[in-house]
């Protein structure tokens, strides 16, 4: 994988989430949360269930509008923009529930990721103009490359719903890569996977960081993976940031331990396998 990003100068930029507050009908999902993702790094977002992690992703993607705060990337403010505009800036996302289209082929699912990079509309598509056909061919080749990189090439013609859970997760990641991302948001990429597959995906994410040199923000519950691959970790609890640092710093932070395990006499270490 090369560092071929869709937006030239964006490679090398970081993602800056500052003081984001989101409230729904009386519940404060995020409270002044700040996360700084350095370029070419893997930044993990952890916390107990309901801490606001997915909400954070939805704010970055533009699905939710925060009451306060800003999200800046490559000199652009993302808050207030529509989700499709944000995707156009190169912010790509793999979802918690995958949001794949089960009856369409894997290739069709991946091609959706190329949407913002392609142009042909109803006229070109409906009349099958040569320009549309050429564009389609080019992008299928690229999709093939990305599928190859993730070891999914042999699955391309199959209906996405027929794949194993682990493979579906990989397709979701592949689709995010098809966007030619400048920022990658991964929502629980190894949920439901066994040790072997988790290891594989962990390696994959590291390869992506090395190859694309983009900020990768990762929501994950699997502490082993987080310890292994994350450069920095931010811990959320009840919408607030309660710790931010390297994996080891966070592992021993008493606030973090309390958030996960409640008050107790012993201080177990989190994330030890």
């Amino acid at each position, binding site marked *: 994988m090369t560092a071929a990003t869709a937006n030239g100068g964006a490679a090398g930029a970081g993602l800056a989430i500052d003081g984001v507050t989101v409230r729904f009908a009386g519940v404060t999902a995020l409270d002044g949360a700040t996360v700084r993702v350095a370029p070419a790094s893997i930044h993990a977002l952890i916390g107990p269930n309901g801490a606001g992690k997915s909400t954070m992703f939805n704010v970055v*993607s533009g699905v939710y509008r925060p009451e306060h705060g800003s999200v800046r990337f490559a000199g652009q403010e993302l808050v207030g923009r529509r989700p499709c505009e944000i995707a156009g800036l190169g912010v790509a996302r793999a*979802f918690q529930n995958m*949001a794949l289209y089960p009856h369409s082929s894997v290739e069709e699912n991946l091609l959706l990721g190329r949407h913002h990079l392609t142009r042909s509309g109803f006229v070109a598509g409906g009349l099958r103009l040569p320009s549309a056909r050429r564009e389609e061919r080019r992008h299928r080749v690229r999709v093939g490359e990305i599928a190859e990189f993730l070891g999914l090439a042999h699955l391309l013609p199959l209906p996405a719903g027929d794949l194993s859970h682990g493979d579906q997760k990989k397709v979701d990641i592949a689709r995010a890569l098809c966007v030619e991302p400048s920022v990658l948001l991964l929502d629980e990429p190894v949920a439901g996977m066994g040790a072997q597959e988790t290891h594989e995906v962990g390696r994959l994410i590291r390869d992506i960081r090395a190859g694309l040199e983009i900020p990768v923000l990762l929501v994950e519950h699997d502490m082993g993976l987080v310890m292994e691959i994350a450069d920095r970790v931010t811990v959320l609890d009840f919408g607030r940031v309660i710790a931010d640092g390297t994996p080891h710093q966070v592992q021993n932070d008493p606030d973090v331990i309390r958030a996960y395990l409640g008050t107790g006499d012993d201080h177990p270490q989190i994330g030890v396998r």
Partner: protein
Amino acid sequence: MEKLLQLLFSGVALGAVYALLALGFVVVFKATQVVNFAHAGLLMVGTYCTARFSAAGRPFAVAVLLGIAVTVGLALVIERAFVRPVVQRSVVAVAIMTIGVDVVLQTEVTRRLGIDILPVGDPWGSATVEVLGITVPQTRVAALVVAFVVLGCFFAWARFSDWGVAMRASAEDHRTAELMGVRLGRVSAIVWVIAAVLAVVAGVFLGAFPSPGVSPTTSAAALRAFPAAILGGLDSTGGALAGGLLIGLAETLTQGYQDQLSFLGQGFSAVMPYVVMVAVLLVRPTGLFGTTEATRV
């Protein structure tokens, strides 16, 4: 001024009738997620039966009860034979299916009616009465009173009775209700019965005023339950009331001031409910009191 008051009164009376209709629609949707397009068809069947029983010499109250009985039976058959097998698969399939059922029901009733206008046999006819200084037709007063009573009974039942609670639980959260022992099949049957009763009561009044009887135009009026329910919010019983009243008032006022509004063309009062509905939806896309869906990604 007298005219305005009369129109307002009429509007509220008509609105009450629409509220009954809309409520029947909303109740089924709330409890079972089914959009029941056959609602208007049930109304037509029940009202037609009432008219025929009346014409056959039965006293009005008996005719109404018989009409209700027939419609309730029909509703139960529809629910059991057509809705239940399909609803687990998909609610949209059921909605489309109810369109099919409605087509069959309405075709049959309009076939029997032909071009006739069948009087429903109500005892009020064109008699008028003085209320608060204005002269209003008795039918409208009766409509208001009956609607009030019926709605009151419904809300009391929903609030306090076991089955009412079961219905509200099922509407709130299907799965949990089931796990808590609520018999969803029973709830489904019950709400269809309620819808049938409400439809017939409303239909009888629609057959009493503004037109002098049941005819194919009654069916067009019955269709207005949909915008009423939608603009109030499809899963809100209070919304059905508000929507019904709003639609009734809009229609009556537009009709009453038709001469001043002649630039809008003849018969705009039939279109007005939809205009109001679209206007409300643009401001509140899920109706006045409907719950907005949160998308989880």
